[in-house]
């Protein structure tokens, strides 16, 4: 049976199963377990109302617990064991890892990614959002800058190979160097700077995301504040930096943190461009070196990523709670 057919059957079974589950479980709850019989009608309806949310939530909570909550504990537990998962070795995986120069490089590189990519994407996104705000063809421009969002990281890496290629007849950078009579260089092998060439790819992808959200936030600014500033004699730059930016600071922070989280997940770009060679390793790609080979080390790296994400997670939860009150 072709996998595609298998997939379509899975869709039918999955969707049918979900609908069946929700329908039947509600039916059983209402008719069998707590039927609104005369006598204790009110009490039974109340009891059914108490149980029903959990019927609605059960499949989602089950999947979430299995695929996201349990792995946090499971990964941590696994990282305390040796390669073959036969022996408890405490924090040995962590201590060997911290001593490994490859990990240190990956950690430092990742730190640079976290500094540069969210800043670059947010700044460019804000710039584009502001510039296109009053433009008659602004929506077309935005749509084109947003487009890389749809492209896979692997596809984007291939696209940028055509920019970075060593051959001046293929790579734009080396074509420009060639034009000025300079020797071609492989920018992906330039120590230290190659990291930035890789970051450019992610900035290229994420600028559209930042732009869309910041553009909506800019639109939400009360016009009176801008008009008042202009009447008071503020120039366009002052209006932008002193009136608009402070008002959308909250959104800027959200965009910034969202991209930061993303940076910690993306291993595709490094994997497809340099394979982690030439000192471009970052934590997610460093982890993939150990995947399937030494799961203890792999989970230890994953847990380090989790620790880095933790402050953002706590901050998000606090924000969400604030909004709900």
């Amino acid at each position, binding site marked *: 049976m072709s*996998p*595609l057919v298998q*997939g379509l059957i*899975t*869709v039918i079974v*999955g969707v049918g199963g*979900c609908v069946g589950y*929700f329908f039947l479980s509600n039916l059983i709850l*209402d008719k069998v377990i707590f039927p609104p019989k005369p006598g204790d009608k009110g009490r039974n309806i109340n009891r059914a109302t108490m149980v029903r*949310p959990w019927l*609605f*939530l059960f*499949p*989602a*909570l089950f*999947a*979430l617990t299995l*695929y996201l*909550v349990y*792995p946090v504990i*499971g990964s941590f537990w696994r990282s305390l064991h040796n390669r073959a998962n036969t022996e408890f070795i405490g924090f040995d995986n962590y201590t060997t890892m911290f001593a490994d120069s490859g990990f240190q490089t990956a950690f430092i590189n990742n730190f640079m990614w976290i500094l540069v990519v969210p800043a670059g994407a947010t700044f460019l996104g804000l710039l584009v959002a502001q*510039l296109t705000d*009053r*433009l008659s063809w602004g929506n077309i421009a935005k749509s*084109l*800058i947003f*487009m890389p*969002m749809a*492209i*896979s*990281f692997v*596809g984007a890496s291939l*696209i940028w190979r*055509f*920019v970075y290629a060593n051959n001046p*007849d*293929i790579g734009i950078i080396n074509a420009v160097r060639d034009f000025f009579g300079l020797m071609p260089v492989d920018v992906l092998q330039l120590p230290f700077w190659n990291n930035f060439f890789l970051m450019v790819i992610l900035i*290229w992808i994420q600028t559209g995301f930042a732009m869309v*959200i910041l553009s909506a936030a800019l639109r939400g600014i009360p*016009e009176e504040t*801008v008009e008042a500033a202009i*009447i008071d004699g*503020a120039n*366009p730059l002052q*209006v932008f930096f002193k009136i608009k930016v402070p008002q959308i600071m909250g*959104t800027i922070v959200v965009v910034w943190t969202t991209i930061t989280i993303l940076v910690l*997940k993306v*291993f*595709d770009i490094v994997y*497809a461009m340099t394979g982690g060679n030439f000192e471009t390793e970052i934590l997610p790609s460093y*982890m*993939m070196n150990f*995947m399937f080979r030494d799961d203890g080390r*792999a*989970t230890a*790296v994953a*847990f380090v990523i989790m620790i880095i*994400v933790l402050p953002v*997670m706590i901050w998000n939860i606090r924000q*969400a709670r604030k909004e709900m009150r």
Partner: protein
Amino acid sequence: MDNIAGTRPALTWVVNISVILLVIIWLIPTVGLLVSSFRDRDQIAISAWWKSPFPVAQNFAAKADAGNAVERDGIFVIEGNIFAEGGNDARSIAAFGGRRTDPTGSAPGETAELTRDRTLTVQENGNYIYTSPAEIKRDPSIYFAAETPPDFSLDNYREILTSANMDRAFINTLTVTIPATIIPILIAAFAAYALAWMEFPGRWLLIALIVGLLVVPLQLALVPMLQFHNMVGIGQSYLGIWLAHTGFGLPLAIYLLRNYMVGLPKDIIESAKVDGATDFQVFTKIVLPLSFPALASFAIFQFLWTWNDLLVAKVFLPSNSESWVMTVKIADDLLGSRGGDWGILAAAAFISIAVPLIVFFTMQRYLVRGLLAGSVK
């Protein structure tokens, strides 16, 4: 706000030009890929894609046929036309030579002196005269550079789809994507309804949990879940990757849908309940149809995410070439085995990004709405 004080015409120009520049910078890499994917592989290597509309100077080698040699006044002569031998689209000679070490040393019309008193003359139209004082036994080589017209074709696509198995990878990607997009929607919709419109103890805790899970790095789940799949007998399979994508997509799905459902008008839902509708009926008959925009937003997100994913596919699918999805195929196979074959790489990349681009441009509205609902509150 167009005509308020403070906007200056000069500034409008600056804004227009900078946006045009930004858009061009943003598009150049993709345009390069697209153009390259249609070009002849020999032309890609020697002329840049931005010069692709113009003729390319390419080097060729041809053989004069020793069998055509005739003897005139004690000198052996071969006459003929290079282009008549066929094999390329070139029409006019830019330079030629008779030695491998000096393939383009002479201009058309000149006579090149070769070793052992032999000579070679090639005209611009390809007519050549080869002379030798001794009998010509082997076919002499003629090297020349000629302008070839731009060569655009679908050859790269044909090759990648037929001989390189990209068609198989395309089907695999589709197989992963469809169930992984549809199944989480329904599960998430029910949960989102419960979190938005049902009162029960612990609701805030669950919402906080969902918000927290939004940022849990996927990497954590890889090892334990693969272990779990092996334990229950799913192993590395499509079923495994569907389940994994479902699990990983749920927090965003629930979060997006709940945010949207909370904003639905309270009156409709309450009056339906007063009229005796159960929660199940309210959900299927009222909330689900009204939430269509949010469902579409999430479906697009999940589709793009699963289509473009490399990490989950590498871990949860078997690593044989039969079950490679396109991203794995490109990253693990083509970049290695066809690393220098730019035309093939470009065609492969374009095949893999074509469907997401179509989805993106046709459904951008929903995507933007989803982004806004997911991030701005």
